[in-house]
């Protein structure tokens, strides 16, 4: 709650930081914002060709299935990679001016949220092309989007703090993301796996978010209450751990610049 009152106090700075990230991101590219929509589409295209043509996956609405996974995973990967650098990249500011340090990360995550929203529009367009039935239940998609945002902010807080202490966390995280990608069932269904493997998937928060999306979009049903609790719990846990690390190291980051 303290965080929210502080956010209110630093609203102007927050807005300026969001603006800065936005301007810096789109300045150098001719296509500008178009890239944000084009990149996931190109990835999707590659995956579709590879898995349909070479691995002969034939599943109803495979494109939508693939897109669900790709959509959420690339958001998670972008926002954590971005978040990891947020503290270090702004070290020129927080060593000179006394500002709350998490602002940089939260402002950056607004940026990735906008990117995600753009891709989401494309996603709905593809759903329409794929003859998906749009129901009122689609409104529930807001829930996993919200928890995913919190979750990636939490992970970003943890990573950005670690990055200040050990710069090589960047490489480790890249490898971990690769592992996570293969472990999130983005391009394959998990029905054929053993009970034990299915449990492993259930322990993967990113997969849980993807599954939530698929259940609503492909099956038209709302996931269980348990799923909702797990998503919220994991997100809150990640933010709490991140906030704790920030709180304990607030005046120590400066020594590591």
């Amino acid at each position: 709650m303290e965080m929210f009152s502080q956010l209110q106090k630093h609203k102007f700075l927050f807005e300026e930081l969001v603006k800065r990230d936005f301007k810096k991101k789109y300045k150098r590219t001719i296509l500008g914002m178009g890239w944000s929509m084009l990149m996931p589409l190109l990835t999707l295209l590659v995956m579709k060709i590879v898995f349909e043509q070479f691995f002969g996956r034939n599943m109803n609405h495979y494109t939508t299935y693939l897109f669900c996974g790709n959509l959420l995973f690339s958001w998670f990967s972008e926002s954590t990679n971005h978040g990891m650098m947020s503290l270090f990249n702004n070290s020129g500011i927080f060593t000179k001016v006394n500002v709350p340090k998490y602002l940089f990360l939260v402002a950056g995550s607004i940026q990735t949220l906008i990117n995600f929203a753009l891709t989401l529009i494309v996603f709905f367009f593809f759903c329409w092309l794929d003859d998906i039935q749009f129901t009122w239940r689609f409104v529930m998609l807001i829930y996993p989007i919200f928890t995913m945002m919190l979750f990636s902010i939490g992970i970003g807080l943890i990573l950005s703090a670690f990055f200040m202490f050990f710069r090589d966390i960047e490489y480790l995280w890249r490898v971990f993301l690769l592992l996570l990608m293969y472990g999130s069932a983005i391009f394959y269904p998990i029905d054929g796996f053993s009970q034990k493997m299915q449990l492993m998937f259930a322990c993967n928060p990113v997969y849980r978010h993807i599954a939530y999306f698929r259940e609503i979009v492909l099956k038209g049903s709302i996931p269980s209450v348990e799923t909702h609790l797990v998503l919220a719990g994991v997100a809150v846990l990640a933010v709490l751990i991140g906030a704790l690390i920030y709180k304990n190291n607030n005046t120590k980051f400066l020594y590591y610049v």
Partner: protein
Amino acid sequence: MSDAKVMLTCKNVSIRYKVGDFKNIGLKEWVMRRLTGKFKVVDFWANRDVSFSINEGDMLGIIGTNGAGKSTLLKAVSGIMMPTKGRIERKGKISALLELASGFDADLTVKENAYLRGAMLGYTRDFMDKTYPYIIDFSELAEFEDRPFKQLSSGMKSRLAFAIASLVKPEILILDEVLAVGDGAFKAKSEAKMREIIKGGATTILVSHSLGQVRDMCNKILWLEKGRQIVFTDDVEGVCNCYEDYLKNRSIPPKYDPVAARARIAARAAEKAQKAAASKLVADAEKANVDNLKGVS
């Protein structure tokens, strides 16, 4: 002036830096050094037992050689660092100008940077909308408003930084080597502005290597040397003399002793005069010699 409001107090402030193996070594090295017991962290006291207090409208000058701990002390005062020991009490809004041109974003324009900086200093959008024309006017950057920051000269950057920090009416203003920027005309302008702010009641801390500036503008002075406080007093002239004396002759200990300093300065002046006289004598003799030779030929 005993009833003046105390704006800032530092009581026995000590700040410890860690130096050594702990940063930029990477995870692997860190684990290796921990395992082999080679991991070393050395404490470095940037400030030790510094105490001072300033009242509303005061202008405190902080002097000391490089590495005396001036900038570290200012970081603690502005709240960026926590003192390891001791206490700092501040009242009012602090606007700190530490290492001026840094902290700006090279890709943003002058206007965007001005707003970002204003936001960092804790001002509102309304306030910035109102003061921005003054800022751009004071820094004389109107024609560069929409240029990216990286295209400006460093003098222009510091001009903007100064304009923002001084026009936003802080209650405590911290200036770290700021007035040494800009060309002659801007220097005069910024000094005039500084005086205006001080008259307006702002409390100012000035770090400067220009003793002339300190003598001119400050009414209190703090001398730091290797993190230790040599003296804090309002005898600005006396401390400046001692410091100047110390700079000329590093073999004497840095000490606040205006009488001895004055004596040494006088002695040095006398010695210099003597030397000048002696060299004049020699020159005269040589000249006379030459004249003689001329006369012979």
